[in-house]
């Protein structure tokens, strides 16, 4: 189980994350929702170890991550929000690079990389550098890179952006099977529909704090408020009509 205990991150005077507590059980896909600037990306960066918390800690299977951060990082796979890749490399070269940085042997990589590229429908373009790839193709390369070392925990930051319908469906099924295999998925997104289809639990973040958390199953009960209602209430963004009107007014300025 992954646990965040009082996770806090401060950038100078700005408090990006304020004493956030959550846990992610094995077999679970945890949705992490929040408006822009709520601290989602900060949480993701803390969880994958790209930044250090100002206060608080992360625990994995009852041990603080700070005891052995390298061992922890070996157990996570990460798909960032923006497809930042070395696009002058081919997909094969990039996956070989990631695999070697993760310490995988050559023979393993020679078997795994082409197999993953074929399954993720990238094989036809495997000889081309990724400069020619669409955003969806780059997302698939990133997913392959995240899965290459057989991680325990997948941290996904908007992984569905740019994906076509087929790849989206494949991703969804893949994540469900991955989690069902006693592993964990932290899923940061803006999309309610995907959270409802995929996640078992959802955390809603607002202004750097956990504003609400719910079992996703509860939203299937027609008598209960929808995820969207809960989100709007939790984040304090209850009426967008005035803003929408203002946008239309500005649009019509000559």
């Amino acid at each position, binding site marked *: 189980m992954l646990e965040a205990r009082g996770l806090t991150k401060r950038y100078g005077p700005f408090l990006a994350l304020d004493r956030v507590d959550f846990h992610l059980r094995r077999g679970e896909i945890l949705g992490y929702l929040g408006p822009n600037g709520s601290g989602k990306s900060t949480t993701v960066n803390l969880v*994958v*170890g*790209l930044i250090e918390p100002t206060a608080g800690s992360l625990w994995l299977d009852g041990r603080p991550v700070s005891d052995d951060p*390298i061992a922890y*990082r070996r157990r996570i796979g*990460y798909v*960032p929000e*923006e497809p*930042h*890749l*070395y*696009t*002058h*490399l*081919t997909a*094969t*070269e990039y996956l*070989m*690079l*990631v*695999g*070697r*940085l*993760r*310490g*995988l*042997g*050559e023979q393993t*990589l*020679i078997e795994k*990389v*082409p197999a993953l590229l074929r399954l993720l429908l990238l094989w036809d*373009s*495997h*000889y*081309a*550098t990724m*400069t*020619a790839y669409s955003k969806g193709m780059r997302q698939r390369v990133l997913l392959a*890179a995240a899965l290459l070392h057989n991680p325990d925990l997948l941290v996904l930051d908007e992984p569905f952006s740019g994906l076509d319908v087929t790849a989206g469906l494949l991703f969804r099924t893949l994540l469900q099977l991955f989690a069902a295999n006693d592993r964990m998925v932290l899923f940061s997104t803006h999309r309610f529909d995907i959270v409802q289809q995929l996640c078992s639990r959802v955390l809603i973040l607002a202004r750097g704090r956990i504003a609400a958390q719910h079992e996703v199953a509860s939203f299937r009960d027609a008598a209960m408020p929808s995820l969207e209602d809960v989100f709007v209430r939790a984040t304090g963004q209850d009426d967008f009509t005035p803003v929408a009107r203002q946008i239309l007014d500005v649009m019509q300025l000559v």
Partner: protein
Amino acid sequence: MTARAEPGEDPRAFRTLTSHFLHALFDFGILSEAAADSFKRLLVSSIGAFVATGLFLTRVYAGRYEALRGGASPEPYRRAVLGDDLLLIGLPMLLVAFVTLLISDSLFPDERDFRILGPLPVRRTTVFAAKLAALLIFTASFIVIVHLALVPLKLLTSFSRWSPHSVVWRLITWIIAGGAASTFAVLAIAALVGTLVLVLSRSRLQSLTAIMRSAAFAVLVVSVPFVFRLPTLGAAVANGSTWLTFVPPVWFLGLERTLVGDANPWFARLATIAVAVAAVAVGSVAIAYAVLFRHFERLILRATKAPRGFRTEGARARVRLPPPFRAVYQFTAATLRRSQLHQGVLVGISACGAGLVINRLAGVNAGWLLAGGAAHAALTGAALWMPFVLMCACGVALRAALALPMEYRANWIFRLTEADATRLDQLCGVERLVAIYVVGVPVAISSPLLWLALGSNAAIAVPVVVLIGFVFVHAVLLHWRRIPFTCSYLPGKRFLAHTLVLATIAYSLFTIIAVALVRTAMSDARRAVIIIAALAIVAAVLRRRRRAVWTVTPLMFEDELPEYPLQLQL
């Protein structure tokens, strides 16, 4: 140049796009906002450097022309002017060619322009016209600046009682011929790039353009010493040496002389060549633009083909090396192979070393083979000096190329996988590459000459050179804590003059001491053993120390300013 707006197109579109393309000429995609500002400052200071160089050359030539003015006959003046006029045409040509090569990625509208501007209500004519206008503005400004910097020297060469032409007329004809020569340099490179864009498939375009650019860059750098030798060609020009018809600046000198009123048929023939090659270059660029304009979608969006003989990297990966070592080594090699910018920096600076070597070798009389004596001593000196000059140039070039970032934000994968246990292997990948390029390449290039000049003594000289190279690797990797291309970059961190002075002192000391060591080793077998043993120990100790530091020091992903002497501990 203006483009008429189509109905529905913003009349300011042309101006806006021209301004955008002008700014984009310097968008290398590697600089952060702070670094871009720093780069702009560097550009402005380089204009100052041109002006200063022009004034410096004038100062250098002042004494010479004073003497020529007082001479008894006009012939020495005539020959000196021919040579110096050649320099005044060749130098701007070279500088303009350098800058055009630097921006050669932006010479034609590309896929990015197509994708971004395609959905906007802007005609293709406007896009092409704006691109061309931006190029014209930039190249014309640069040509003007370079020529302005050389005006004092031109005036100096023109004020003489032996000059048969008026100063103003000489100045005007020089501006016409020099401008034409520099424009030809721009067009020649544009024609080359245009041809590649039209002919190559997308998959090959990137790599072949990178190779073409690096090769052209190397040729330009190697030609620097030749350009500075142009003033010595006055007599050859006056005599109409046939081989000069293969030297581009000479064509435009012919044009200048013809315009100024020189009736010599040799100059008329050169002028004809100048006009013909300029027409061919203009025609080629016009055709490239026209074809690209008519078939833009087809040419830019053509399918990517599998390169012939393509193999996945995995198929080649058989060597037993630690995976992190292989990761960094392959990543670095692939980036240097494909990135035009990094390859350009590497080849360009390395070619400076090659230029210095060629310049020195050109001064050695090859008659030593028959005569022996002094010429042989000169060749021995050049042969001993050569590997160390190449080491210096290759070292600076490789370090500069590795320090420039590539897709900076993609470095998260290196940050995420950094560990004390694997860092050493990763940095050893860099060390291996540095050793190959900074020691292996110079030694391989220099060895034949060393054997030719030193005979059996080369058996002692080569190991000493190799060991000195391994010690020098430590200088190249001093304070190095980066995975290549993953750290941000701040250009112009130190005062340029300060860096140049330090580099010159370091270079002089290194080459003098290194050559002295080789000479001493060759003088006596016992000394050779002591020197080889001492160098081997020093190289091993430095290597061990470097590796120990790498094991405990974290990698660097953010470039830092050198030091902050103004920080006060209050």
